[in-house]
Structures are given as structure tokens and as C-alpha cells.
């Protein structure tokens, strides 16, 4: 799942910096670098993109003005030296707001937000077949509440049924989408189905699954990103 993007930035070095960053993120695909908002507008009319890195302080037509012209659902990450535009930028569907100087770390954090959303969408559409006995049963990602690992096989727990599959937890982890997280040596949970997290336990369906030491940090940081 790649994300197409353009840079709108009138300062060449600032534009180059973003380009360097984009090249280092495998799922980002840079389509064009524009020096003005008008140039971007012209380009977008013939070739729409998923994401725009948009400087606010541009000559003639400002980045903020361009954002107002673009379709409501256009994803924009603003880049600027001003902090005073933050409130306005969030009012117009901006995904994020990068303050100059922009570090790579901060940049990645920002694009990950969009990547996360995109991945979730494909996961929602994703379904696969489980071999259960002699039958092949179609299961969609969303139906799975959690997966329990036993010795040589795993148990897929759906709302009302269970399916046993001969597979290893480690192999599953690599296949499943990002919303599936390992919380324990023996458990992978679908974070979309978590009811609550309390006393270091994940409540899901009628189960309480302990979060083990090994997976606690990665799991909790995932949750913290979704904390309002």
C-alpha cells in the first residue's frame, strides 16, 4: 500500500529535506515538487495525490489558501515556521502540522498517522480462508477477536465460534495487519475489539488476557497513540 504525495515548498533546501525524508520511507511515493501553490493546483488537476506536504508561507497564494480550495478530504501535512496557524490548520482536515526545523523522527511520526489509517482500511477489506478439518472457512480480519497460541497450532476466536489451525504464532504475526498485536507469548489480540485495558489485562469478549512483560512496551505505545 503506497501513498502518493507532492511537496509544495518555495525554499529549495526545505523542499530537498522533505524529499530526502520521503525517499527513506518505503511506502511514500513522491510525484512532484512544486515551488508555488499555483503550480501544485495545476498538477493536482491532472493527477490527484493521497497526500500533500504543504508549506504555509508561500508567495502569492499561501498554503492555507490552497488548502481551502482543495477538496475537503484531501490529506495535508502543513510545514511551517509559524506556530500561530496550528488552530486554523486543524480546522481544515490537516493530518498534522510540522514545525521547522523538521526532524526525520517527527516526519515519520506524522506520515505514520496516514499510513496507519490506510492500512486499517485494507485490513477491513481483508479476508482469508481457514482450514478447519476438511472444510475451508472464509473469515475476515474483523471477525477475529483474538488468537490463542497452543503448542503446534493456534485457535482463532470469533464471536461465537473457534477455529483451530496448524500454524505458529510467529508466522501469523507477520501476516496479520497492524491492528493485530501480540500481548503475550500465547495471545494476539485484534485491537479493534478491545473493550478495555485494566490492571495490565486486555478485556476482549469474555476473556481477560494478561499483557506480558515482553510485549508490554510496544503494545502500550500503540495504545497511547490512540489515547484521546
Amino acid at each position: 500500500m503506497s501513498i502518493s504525495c507532492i511537496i509544495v515548498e518555495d525554499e529549495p533546501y526545505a523542499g530537498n529535506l522533505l524529499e530526502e525524508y520521503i525517499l527513506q520511507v518505503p511506502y511514500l511515493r513522491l510525484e512532484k515538487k512544486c515551488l508555488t501553490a499555483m503550480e501544485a493546483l495545476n498538477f493536482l488537476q491532472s493527477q490527484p495525490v493521497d497526500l500533500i506536504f504543504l508549506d504555509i508561507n508561500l508567495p502569492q497564494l499561501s498554503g492555507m489558501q490552497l488548502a481551502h480550495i482543495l477538496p475537503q478530504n484531501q490529506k495535508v501535512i502543513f510545514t511551517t515556521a509559524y506556530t500561530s496557524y496550528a488552530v486554523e490548520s486543524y480546522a481544515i482536515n490537516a493530518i498534522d502540522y510540522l514545525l521547522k526545523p523538521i526532524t526525520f523522527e517527527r516526519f515519520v511520526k506524522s506520515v505514520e498517522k496516514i499510513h496507519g489509517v490506510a492500512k486499517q482500511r485494507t485490513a477491513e477489506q481483508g479476508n482469508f480462508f481457514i482450514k478447519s478439518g476438511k472444510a475451508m472457512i472464509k473469515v475476515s480480519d474483523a471477525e477475529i477477536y483474538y488468537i490463542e497460541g497452543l503448542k503446534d497450532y493456534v485457535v482463532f476466536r470469533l464471536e461465537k465460534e473457534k477455529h483451530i489451525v496448524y500454524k505458529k504464532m510467529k508466522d501469523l504475526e507477520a501476516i496479520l495487519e497492524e491492528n493485530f498485536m501480540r500481548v503475550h507469548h500465547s495471545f494476539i489480540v485484534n485491537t479493534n475489539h478491545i473493550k478495555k485495558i485494566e490492571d495490565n489485562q486486555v478485556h476482549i469478549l469474555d476473556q481477560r488476557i494478561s499483557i506480558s512483560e515482553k510485549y508490554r512496551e510496544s503494545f502500550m505505545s500503540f495504545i497511547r497513540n490512540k489515547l484521546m
Partner: protein
Amino acid sequence: MIFAFLFGALLRISLNHFGLLRQIQERQSQQATAELNLLKSQVQPHFLFNALNNIYYLSYTKSDLAPQSIARLSDIMRYFVEEAPKEWVPLKAELDFIQDYIEVERIRLPHNLEICWERNGQHKEQILIPPILFIPLVENVFKHGVDKTRENNEIAISVEVESKTLTFTVKNSLHSLQNNKSKGTGLANLRKRLTLLFNHDFNLQTGPESGYYVAKLTIPL
């Protein structure tokens, strides 16, 4: 006896009166100084962070331009911190500062910028002037006078020191989008500050002039 008493009272009253007057005058001059300081243009955070972002890129790519850009930005910051609070600075210091400022602005531009400097000899640059007086005019060139989509932007700066006056002129090649009217707060503040410093003994003119946008400031020495 009565006269002596009356004289003494009168003396006290008038002493109080003069003391009060002096206090008022002191307060007024303090107020003027405060106002002057407020009107002195400050380093623009926007300029600073954009410059840092550019330098960040230069250092990220390990460019040879990084060290000299950092040095220039340091000189600019030092000027703001150490020289700007003073009442008077040598003309040379102010001009060097402007040159540093232009060089840092230049790395932010997509195309080359032609700059023509006309500076007087060293001996004339030792004269003292109030600091940060010309920079608002140079800032305006970068804000409004440079068309970033065009490849041939020109700036000309000249400084003429005469026996009783100094004239600072900034010209830039006029482009279609540059507004003839100067509405900027930078220029309005400069005018206020000039009035406080020189009363009406100065001349500031801005506007288009045969293909150029010209800002010309003459101050008494």
C-alpha cells in the same frame, strides 16, 4: 518675620515644583526610551526558524555550506543581542549585519539573486548611527520584492555618507505583484522610530521608480 516665613514656604513650594517637574521629565524620557526600544525591529522568529531549517538540511547532507551558514546566523544573533540594545553603533557594524542577513536569506531562494553593494570607504563607516535602522527596508525586499518564481531578481544597496547626512537606498527589480503602497507594520514602526530619533529631520521615501521599487532613507548625522 512673616516675610521670612512666607519666603521659606514659597521656596519649599517652588523646590517641590521643580522636583516634580524633573520627575515628569525623567518619566517622559524613560517612556520615550521604552517606546524606542519597542519600535526597534526584533529578530523575526519566522526568519530564524526558516534559516535553521535550511541549515538543518545543509548539515543533514553534510554540505560545506553548513558551517559558514551557522557562523552567519550566529553573527546576526550576536548583533541583535549585543549591538541592538545600544544607542549608537558604527555604520560598518550595521552594514556587515545587513550583509550577513542577506546571505542567510539568499540560501532560502530557489534562484540566484544578483546583489550590488555600493559602500563608502572604511573611514566613513566609523561614523555612529542608531542600530537596526535600515534592516526593515531590506526585510521588505525579501518579503515583497523578490519574485521567487523568477530567475533574475536583482537588489542594489547603496550607502552615501555626506558631511551632514547619510542616505541608505535599497532597490529591487519591480515585478507585477509587488504592491506600490507600503502598508507593512515594519515600515510604519520605522517611521515612528525615526520621528522619535530625529523629529522631522529625516526623509523616507518608498515606491516604484523606472522599473525598480526604491526605498530611500536619509538621516542627519
